[in-house]
C-alpha cells in the first residue's frame, strides 16, 4: 500500500480514538473527602467566614446549577455578570476562588456533604459544623519561628514530608532570601491579604490545583505551617524596607554566558577535526595562478 495514504489514514483513525478515550473522565470520590481536601482551606460549615464565606445552608440559598458553575469556575460566573457572584467577589477582598474540574456527581456529593453538616442537618449535631483545626495562635511566634519559617521557605531546611520548597514557585521580597519562583503568586503581602487563618489554611491544605498536586501525599506538618505563617507575617511587615530582585534578567544573562562556554567547549574538544575539503587548497591555488 502507498505509505503516504496509509499515513493519513493512521493519523485520522488514532486521532479520533484518542479524543474519545481522553474525554472519558476517570475517578470518583465522596463529598467529605473532597470537602476536607479542598474547600476547608477557605470555607467552614457553620463556624463563621474565613477567606471565603461560611457555607452552612448554602444549598438552600443557591441553586445546584449555580453552585456547580461557581465551583467549576468562579471567575467565569463573575465575568458573566452574575450579580450575586460579583457581590461575593467584592465582599471577600477580590480573592478568586480556584477552579475545580469536578464532575456533576462529585459536586453533588460535596453539596450533600454541606447539607448534612449544616445546622439542622443530620451530621451537624455530631460535628457541630466543619472548620480547619485552629492550631497554635500566631501571637506565640518568636524570632526563632520566623527564622525557621524563612529556612523552610527557601529550602535550607527540608520540608518534613518531602514536599517541594516554597520558593520554587513563590517569591517573597526579602533581602535574606534568594529570589523565589515566578510560577505562582508573589507572597510578600499574602499575610495582609489572607490573614492568619487564611494563610494557615492554604499552607496546610492548599486548594489551588497545582499546589494541591505538589503537596499531595506530602503535606506540611503543623509546626511547618506555623513557622511559615510566622515568616510570611514577618515578611509582610518588613516588605517596604526590602529590595526587589530581578532573577529573570540574571537567569537570561547567566544562561547566555553558559551557552557561550558550552559552544567554546565544543570548539575546543573538536579542534582536530578535518575542516573543509582537501581539494580546497588546490582550487584556491589554481584560482590564484589564474
Amino acid at each position, binding site marked *: 500500500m502507498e505509505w503516504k495514504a496509509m499515513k493519513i489514514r493512521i493519523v485520522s483513525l488514532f486521532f479520533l480514538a484518542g479524543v474519545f478515550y481522553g474525554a472519558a473522565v476517570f475517578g470518583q470520590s465522596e463529598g467529605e473527602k473532597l470537602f476536607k481536601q479542598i474547600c476547608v482551606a477557605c470555607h467552614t460549615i457553620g463556624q463563621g467566614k474565613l477567606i471565603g464565606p461560611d457555607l452552612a445552608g448554602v444549598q438552600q440559598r443557591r441553586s445546584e446549577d449555580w453552585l456547580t458553575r461557581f465551583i467549576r469556575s468562579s471567575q467565569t460566573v463573575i465575568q458573566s455578570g452574575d450579580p450575586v457572584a460579583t457581590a461575593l467577589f467584592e465582599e471577600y477582598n477580590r480573592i478568586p476562588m480556584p477552579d475545580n474540574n469536578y464532575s456533576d456527581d462529585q459536586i453533588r456529593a460535596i453539596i450533600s456533604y454541606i447539607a448534612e453538616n449544616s445546622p439542622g442537618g443530620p451530621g451537624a449535631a455530631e460535628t457541630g459544623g466543619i472548620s480547619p483545626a485552629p492550631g497554635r495562635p500566631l501571637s506565640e511566634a518568636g524570632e526563632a519561628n520566623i527564622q525557621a519559617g524563612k529556612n523552610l521557605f527557601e529550602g535550607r531546611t527540608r520540608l518534613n514530608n518531602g514536599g517541594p520548597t516554597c520558593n520554587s514557585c513563590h517569591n517573597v521580597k526579602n533581602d535574606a532570601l534568594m529570589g523565589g519562583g515566578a510560577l505562582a503568586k508573589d507572597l510578600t503581602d499574602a499575610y495582609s491579604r489572607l490573614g492568619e487563618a487564611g494563610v494557615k489554611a492554604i499552607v496546610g491544605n492548599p486548594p489551588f490545583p497545582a499546589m494541591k498536586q505538589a503537596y499531595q501525599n506530602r503535606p506540611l506538618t503543623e509546626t511547618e505551617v506555623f513557622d511559615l505563617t510566622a515568616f510570611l507575617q514577618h515578611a509582610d511587615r518588613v516588605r517596604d524596607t526590602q529590595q526587589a530582585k530581578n532573577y529573570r534578567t540574571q537567569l537570561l544573562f547567566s544562561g547566555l554566558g553558559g551557552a557561550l562556554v558550552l559552544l567554546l567547549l565544543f570548539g575546543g574538544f*573538536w579542534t*582536530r*577535526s*578535518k575542516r*573543509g*575539503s*582537501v*581539494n580546497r587548497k*588546490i582550487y584556491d591555488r589554481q584560482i590564484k595562478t589564474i
Partner: protein
Amino acid sequence: MDVRAQISMVFHLDKCIGCHTCSIACKNIWTDRKGAEYMWWNNVETKPGTGYPTKWEDQEIYKGGWEKKPGGNARLKGAGKLRGLLNIFHNPHLPVIDDYYEPFTYKYLDLIESPAGDDQPTARPVSLITGKPMDIKMGPNWDDDLSGTPDYARQDPNLKDLSPAEQEAMFQLERMAFFYLPRICNHCLNPACVASCPSGAIYKRGEDGVVLINQKVCRAWRMCVTACPYKKSYFNWGTGKSEKCILCYPRLEAGYAPACMHSCVGRIRYLGVMLYDADSISEVVNNIEKDVDLVNQQLGMLLDPFSESVIKAAKENGISDSTLKAAQDSPVYKFVKEWGLALPLHPEFRTLPMLFYVPPLLPVMASLSAADHGEQAKKMDPAAKFWNDGWLYNTSTEELWGTIDQARFPLKYLASMFSAGDEEKIKAILKKLMAVRIYRRWKTVGDVNEEKAAAVLKDAGLTADTAEGIYYLTSLAKFDDRFVIPPAHREQAIEMLEFAGDTKGSVGFGFKEKPERGW
C-alpha cells in the same frame, strides 16, 4: 585452526593500461543512480598521484584504518565504540563531497534544441546535486596520466619518505614515469568499516568473505566512510545510506566474474579462493609491533590448500569439497603464496586486505633508457647482449639486476605502497618478474644466452617450471584460469541473499520496498 574461505583477488599492475573499462563496467551496473553518481566502487588511479578521494592514503587527514601503539591492541584510528558514538552527531574526519568531486553532467539537449542564434550552442555542465550550472573543478580522474602534477602527483602521500632530492629526480620531465593503480574494495579480513559501524549494518559473509552493507540497517552514522582507510565505503547522499563494492556477489554466485574483472581488457585481474586461519587474525593485527612485519604475517595466515591438515580442518568447518578444489586451483594462491609475486596494498593500515597487487616492473625498467650506454658498453658482461639503439624496455643489461638497482622510479615509493616500507620485498618480486622476462627472451627470441637465463632464474629463486607457470598465467591465461570461482551451492545461493521464503515471488536482490530516501 579456524579455516575459512575468502574470495581473493590479484591485480597485475604491469598489465594495466589505465583504460578505465573496469570503472565504467562497474558504474553502469551499480552506481548510476542519484546520490551514487560520484561513487566509483572501482576506480583507476595514476601513481604517483593523490588518487580518489584526494590524498586518501594520508590517514593524518582521513583517520582511516587501525593504529597500534607499542604494547597495546590495534584500535580504529578515527572511529571505534566510544569515539564513534561521541562523534555520531558530527563525524570530525568525514570526507565531504568536495574531497571526491561534485558530480556533473552536460546539458546535451541544448546542443540540439537551442534556438537559432549567432553563437554555437554549448552543452553547459550542470551539477548532479543542485541541478544548477557549475564550474567543474574536479573529476574522478582529474590527475589521470600525471596531469596537474604540481597539485596532484607531487602531493602523493607515498612520497613522504623520499628525500627532496629523490623527489626532484622523480619529477624531472624527461625522467617521469608512472603506473596505474586500479582499486576496488579489498574485502579485508579485519575490515575497519565493519568494526566501525555503530548499527552493525556491515558484515562479512562467512561463506566467501565478501563485505556487504545491509541497506535496511544502515542509519547514516557515516563511521564506515571514515574508518575505511582505502575510502571504499561511500555515503549515498540521496538515500542516506552507505554503499560499497559488493564484489558483484550476484554474479559470483551465478559463476560469473565480477563486472570489473570480466571487462578488463588488459586481463590484469585474477580471482580465486584463499583459505585462511581466522584464529590468527587477532594475533596478527594486535600483536605484531612493526608494520614491516605485517606482510609476512598476513601471508602466513593464508593456508596451503593441499595440506592434509588444512583440508581436514576446512571440512570440519563446513567448507565444501568444491570450494577446496577451487582453492587448490586458485590463481591468487599461485601469485601470492606459491610464487610470492603479489603484495597487499598498504598493509600498515592493518585491515588485512585480500586484494593483492603484483608491483609494476615497467616504470623501473624504463629507467635504463636514460642511462649512459657508452659507459655501459665497456663494462658489458659477455653473457649479455647489448643494444645501443636505446630501446626503452631493455631486458639485457650487462649487470643482471642493473635496472632494478638503479631504478629511477624509487623502490622506496613502491615499498611505501605495498610492503609498509620494506624495499627488499619489492626488489625480490621485481627480480622474479625480470627473470621470467629474460628467461622467456632466451626461449622465444634467443638473443639472450641460456647461461644468462639460468643465472637470473637461479638468482631470483625460480625454476624453469615456475617461470613457465608465471609466464602462462601472466600472458596466456584464459578466462577459466584467471577466474576460479567456487560454485555457489544452489541450496545456499539464495540463502546467501536472504531467507528463501521471502525471496519467493520477489524481484531483484530482495528489495520489496523501493530504495527511496526516507523523510
